[in-house]
């Protein structure tokens, strides 16, 4: 680890870097994220595995685990606000703070965005370094290119609580299906009836026999990605872990937009006429 000395006129000033650990231990941590971790005065962490926590602890002597702030029955948003307060307390004390989250620190993670926003508003240097996310791993492991058909992502509860437009000609990726409707940690698991509501909603756009994929990426390098397939109708009764993601491949072909194509063809003609003139 190389710590470059501060210029003589530089005074210690708090800063915040939110970095991603990636998904798989040893495989995904970027050199820059690792440098932030090693050079920080204080490191906060919210990681996926004990092994990853132990790995991180070897990179900095002051690593503080954020996960114990989760409590059974406690609303998640209260925990996330506490995380923000913890980070900013150290930033305001003049510390170089690094907050490490598994995957990408800005994907399905409220606290890093909020902490950076507040730190910047208070005049501190704060930024985010991307990490390899579960979504990135999903594309690689399932062989999906979001550019081929398009790809929508929703937190499953949001899909139920809000009026959203699903496009069955593209991929649909549903996150957090297992804890559907649970807003606090340790809440009583919702029964199959809750997932049945999701299936009923999806059945407006997909046949019940449509194949779905249940995916989980590897977090330790001795693991392989878990890929299971089932029919949409069976989703309510499947065993699902919180780390598993449900993917619905397209059920319909992409329809050509004839009106827009005609309009673009007209523009092509006009452009060609201008060139010829």
């Amino acid at each position: 680890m190389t710590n470059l000395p501060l210029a003589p006129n530089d005074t210690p000033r708090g800063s915040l870097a939110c970095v991603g650990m990636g998904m798989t231990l040893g495989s995904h941590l970027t050199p820059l994220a690792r440098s932030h971790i090693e050079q920080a005065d204080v490191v906060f962490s919210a990681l996926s595995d004990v092994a990853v926590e132990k790995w991180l602890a070897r990179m900095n002597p002051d690593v503080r685990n954020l996960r114990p702030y989760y409590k059974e029955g406690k609303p998640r948003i209260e925990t996330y606000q506490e995380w923000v307060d913890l980070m900013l307390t150290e930033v305001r004390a003049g510390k170089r703070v690094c907050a490490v989250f598994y995957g990408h620190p800005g994907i399905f993670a409220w606290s890093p965005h909020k902490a950076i926003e507040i730190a910047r508003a208070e005049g501190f240097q704060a930024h985010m370094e991307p990490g390899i996310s579960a979504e990135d791993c999903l594309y690689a492991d399932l062989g999906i290119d979001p550019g081929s058909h398009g790809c929508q992502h929703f937190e499953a509860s949001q899909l139920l609580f809000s009026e959203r437009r699903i496009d069955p000609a593209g991929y649909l990726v549903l996150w957090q299906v297992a804890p559907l409707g649970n807003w606090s940690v340790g809440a009583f698991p919702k029964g199959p009836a809750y997932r049945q509501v999701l299936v009923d909603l999806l059945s407006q756009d997909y046949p019940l026999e449509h194949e779905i994929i249940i995916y989980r990426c590897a977090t330790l390098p001795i693991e392989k990605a878990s890929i299971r397939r089932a029919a949409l109708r069976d989703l309510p009764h499947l065993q699902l872990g919180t780390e598993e993601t449900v993917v619905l491949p397209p059920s319909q072909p992409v329809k050509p937009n004839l009106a827009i194509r005609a309009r673009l063809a007209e523009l092509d003609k006009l452009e060609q006429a201008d060139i010829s003139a």
Partner: protein
Amino acid sequence: MLDTIEWLETIGQNASLRHAPAEQLVSTLDQAGASAALKAAAMSGDKSKLSSEWGGGGDGGTGGGEGPFGVDHSSHSAWIDND
């Protein structure tokens, strides 16, 4: 000799080891004197077999409920209804 965390980091960073067949990986670990728990985990692809490495205790888990590795692997953002 590498300990288990160092081995996991090494495997994760090594193109030959990361996707090696389980038998081949375990053979490498065996020759290098890796722990029995790591070899068992590598053979089965089941990380729960590593729990003895950390004393088999809890992890301060958050409701995931999958034994010592049962951390909350859900997102760190509950979707917030703005209405």
